């Protein structure tokens, strides 16, 4: 593909046998690979976006062009596959039902086997495997019931595209307020080309009556590789949001660069839980997703609370630091993470806790598990600014190693500008011992059960933060991800 950004889409269309020519037919399913202003205009037009949003995208793109891909990630055991940004197709309409598998019989049996192991209900398996949903069960009715309940409470929960149409003033007010459109290379790319994602707004004083989950937007799950999520919790409200699911999701894209922004007003609380299980590549490290995500929460109001919980088991490479900006006095930021790397997976993840307000508190618990030739890096920043009187941070960072070829690394950074603050950091590294496995075996417990028991024990503080059902799934997921890694 040509790199010349001046090439028009028409010229491309001719060269790439693109038979529809999208300028005249913006209903076309997929744009040919490549990125330039024209592509961004097409995406924006296709989504019927207001002018300000188009300009916002273009501004991000202009900046992105001047930025260079960061190279500071810690990937000791992975051959970096360069990302060819001009080889990515930046717009792809959701697959039409006739192009999808008609039933589970047409789905890769190995995928189904994994669903089975994870105990995923039959009807959900179909949706996850990309089977035309209507052919299997009526997802619309589920979604409708769900929406009605939320509507009664006044909660807005919809796809990002819908929000742009239906609540443009809210989107315009908050978009890019926590993660600016030029925050970093991948965030800028996302701002330029994001295609969809989720939007939630919890009005003042409302306790969201149910956990919000993309699960309930199952028919809109293919939000693409540049997903954007914005959650705003107004004064005194509460919401718990679940992202992702344990089932391995099929995806041929190499790069995922999502952006998540959370804003909690005075006395509001947002609990954001993620289970990430994108394709990790095969056991030789071939293929797999690059998951380079920017997630940040702003505790804007006094006594606000943002809590991140993540279970990361997928992707060939993970690069993300869900962070909290503790601006309001007495606000609280939390980060609970389990990151598991097996085979050739590499994860460089952690958090940033930026203390601005008085008596702000943050709590960080990170559990890294490395197996095979996997490497796990914890990278964290605790920054206490001069105005953050009596701020407190506690960080606990534990690593577990399985086998001789994996690695665990930690890069904690602490910057304190206020002498009244308290910062604690604890770290440990342990090895899952053959003697522990043998002990379990001796009592009649199989290798697999032993490993899963020991690993789950190691992660218990993080799992305790997950909603009950999610926690059960997460446990099963760890076991499946570690299969055959011991004994």
């Amino acid at each position: 593909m040509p790199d010349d950004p001046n090439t028009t889409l028409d010229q491309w269309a001719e060269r790439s046998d693109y038979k529809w020519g999208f300028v005249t037919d913006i209903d076309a399913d997929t744009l040919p690979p490549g990125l330039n202003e024209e592509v961004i205009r097409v995406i924006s037009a296709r989504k019927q976006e207001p002018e300000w949003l188009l300009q916002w995208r273009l501004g991000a793109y202009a900046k992105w062009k001047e930025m260079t891909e960061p190279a500071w990630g810690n990937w000791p055991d992975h051959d970096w596959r360069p990302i060819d940004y001009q080889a990515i197709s930046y717009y792809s309409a959701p697959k039409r039902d006739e192009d999808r598998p008609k039933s589970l019989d047409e789905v890769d049996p190995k995928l189904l086997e994994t669903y089975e192991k994870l105990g995923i209900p039959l009807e959900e398996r179909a949706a996850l495997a990309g089977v035309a949903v209507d052919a299997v069960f009526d997802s619309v009715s589920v979604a409708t019931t769900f929406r009605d309940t939320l509507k009664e409470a006044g909660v807005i929960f919809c796809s990002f595209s819908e929000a742009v149409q239906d609540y443009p003033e809210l989107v315009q007010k908050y978009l890019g307020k926590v993660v600016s459109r030029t925050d970093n290379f991948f965030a800028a790319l996302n701002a330029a080309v994001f295609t969809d994602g989720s939007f939630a707004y919890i009005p003042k004083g409302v306790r969201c009556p149910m956990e919000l989950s993309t699960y309930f937007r199952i028919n809109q799950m293919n939000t693409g590789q540049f997903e954007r999520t914005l959650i705003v919790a107004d004064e005194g409200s509460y919401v718990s949001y679940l992202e992702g699911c344990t089932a391995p999701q099929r995806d041929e894209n190499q790069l995922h660069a999502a952006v998540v922004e959370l804003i909690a007003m005075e006395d509001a609380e947002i609990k954001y839980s993620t289970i990430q299980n994108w394709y990790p590549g095969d056991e030789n490290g071939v293929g797999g997703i690059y998951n380079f995500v920017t997630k940040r929460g702003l505790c804007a109001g006094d006594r606000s609370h943002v809590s991140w919980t993540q279970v990361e088991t997928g992707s060939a490479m993970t690069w993300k630091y869900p962070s909290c900006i503790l601006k309001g006095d007495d606000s609280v930021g939390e980060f609970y993470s389990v990151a598991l790397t097996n085979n050739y997976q590499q994860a460089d993840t952690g958090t940033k806790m930026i203390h601005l307000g008085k008596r702000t508190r943050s709590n960080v618990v990170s559990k890294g598990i490395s197996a095979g030739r996997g490497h796990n890096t914890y990278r964290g920043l605790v920054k206490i600014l001069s105005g953050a009187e009596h701020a407190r941070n506690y960080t606990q960072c534990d690593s577990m190693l399985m086998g001789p070829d994996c690695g665990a690394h930690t890069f904690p950074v602490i910057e304190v500008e206020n002498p009244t603050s308290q910062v604690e950091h604890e770290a440990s590294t342990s090895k899952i011992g053959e003697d522990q496995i043998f002990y379990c075996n001796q009592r009649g417990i199989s290798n697999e059960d032993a490993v899963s028991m020991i690993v789950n024990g190691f992660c218990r503080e993080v799992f305790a933060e997950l909603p009950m059902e999610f926690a059960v799934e997460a446990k099963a997921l760890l076991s499946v991800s570690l299969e055959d890694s011991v004994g």
Partner: protein
Amino acid sequence: MSLLEIKNLHACVDGVEILRGINLTINPGEVHSIMGSNGSGKSTLARVLAGDEAYEITEGTATLNGVDLLDMAPDVRGREGLFLAFQYPVEIPGVSTKYFLRTAVNAVREHRGLDELDAFGFLKLVKEKAAWVQLDPALLDRPVNEGFSGGEKKRAEVFQMAMLEPIMAILDETDSGLDIDALRIVAKGVNKLRNPDRGFLVITHYQRLLDYIVPDVVHVLLDGRIVRTGDKELALELEEKGYGWIEKITSTSA
């Protein structure tokens, strides 16, 4: 049929031969004791029987109830009813003892074709068996062996044995590090488990344990071989004359 039958068992670790032809037959209901000085191969025998892969078996056979034991994976041996009370039980952080044991008990029960024990039935059993060795039930909410004193670890091993009801139990220096009161308690627990179907192999350094767990047969292990077999009197004689005596008489007879 004998319960445990070991014939000409040789095993080595890192190329060094530790067991050099063990022959041993234990019948149902019998308690055998193996005594020997440090490095004679006592613990190696226990771990080899349990299936520790650190040891390489170079020759010989071992059967449990007539079935080839050496061919089974360690967890299968456990489910088949072989139990080893470890000399140094490992700690498993984060895994509560109760949860661990329930998984083990149910794995064994499943293997025996029994129903899973529900939470209520399990806790009832825990209470009953913990009392046998005067183990504080509060300990069982802690991670496996974590923060247990030396004596508590040994009592916990016997407690686990009582929970799992093995057919062949091996105790590897369960008496080491125990004071006399704890020793009595542990022995009492073991004696409660003695029955006509169950076999015991009690490995010890000292005769004093055998005052409380009275063995039917005593073997003396030296340099990886059983050099003498007798009854309880042999243990007393050994205590009196020391291991040097055995070495001496063995080298004379050799």
